[in-house]
């Protein structure tokens, strides 16, 4: 399912080639709202799983519970920029949802800070 065009690379090809192959050479478009901590969550099942790569499906599996972009990158062990490209695909397809960026305050407000304060005290 990784796509026939991936046949030419192997382990010896080096770390920069693999991320390139994974996104099939695309460098855009990246969703600008994908930051390190942006929360992503997969829909219960992808609309058309046959159209997805192994990496896309791994993300769908990981994001059954909400995770940050940085966590997805860490668990998949690929650079952040690669995960952002793959997530952008999935968001475009409607298979992954993120929080409406217009509703996320740029700086935490007092209620949010109070919740975090209570939470940290409670751990």
């Amino acid at each position: 399912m990784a796509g026939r065009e991936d046949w030419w690379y192997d382990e010896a090809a080096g770390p920069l080639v693999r991320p390139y192959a994974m996104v099939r050479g695309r460098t855009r478009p990246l969703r600008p709202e994908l930051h390190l901590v942006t929360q992503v969550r997969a829909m219960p099942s992808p609309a058309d799983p046959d159209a997805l790569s192994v990496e896309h499906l791994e993300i769908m599996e990981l994001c059954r519970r909400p995770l940050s972009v940085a966590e997805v990158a860490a668990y998949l062990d690929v650079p952040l920029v690669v995960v952002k490209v793959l997530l952008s695909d999935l968001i475009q397809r409607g298979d992954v949802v993120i929080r409406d960026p217009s509703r996320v305050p740029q700086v935490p407000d007092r209620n949010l800070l109070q919740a975090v304060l209570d939470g940290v005290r409670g751990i």
Partner: protein
Amino acid sequence: MVSVESERPGGELLVPTPVKIVIAGGFGTGKTTMVNAVSEIPPLHTEELLTEAGVGVDDVLGLEQKETTTVALDFGRITINPEVVLYLFGTPGQNRFWFMWDELAYGAIGAVILVDTRRLDSSFPSIDFFERRGIPFIIAVNCFEGAHLYEVEEVRRALDVEKGIPLVLCDARDRESAKTVLVNLIQHTMDRLDAMA
């Protein structure tokens, strides 16, 4: 709080609000140690590829012939409640990756700047960074074993930070101590918010 962007009817899923705290300081001041002390998961590691210019995300992928640099990030997580998740990011070791620092600081609650009294100067770049951007921060002096214990006011004078910036002593390995540091930072950010209101 629970509204999400969804393109499918009836497809509303809970997507939490993320918040973050930056753990900064010079090399070897205990940043990852502190993240480890409070994180609910073992600290995670991820990498960003940057061109030497440090700006061109678009240019990074697949450019085998261009100079690229890997910036490593270590981070931890504290689930506050089902709707809020706190992330703790250690700053990358090399201070030249300011591009990454900007991304880390974007929207952050604030920063804890860890200080080793044996190498005070290694924390100056972090202090400068957060001071200049007006991002709330506190100083946490990591009391390494064997290091001479200084008075808080001595350290404050040596670092030349203003009176309004909290300065606390801590043991970055100790969960309760690291928790106290985070609580101090969050309260400091709230105080600043109240003062501006």
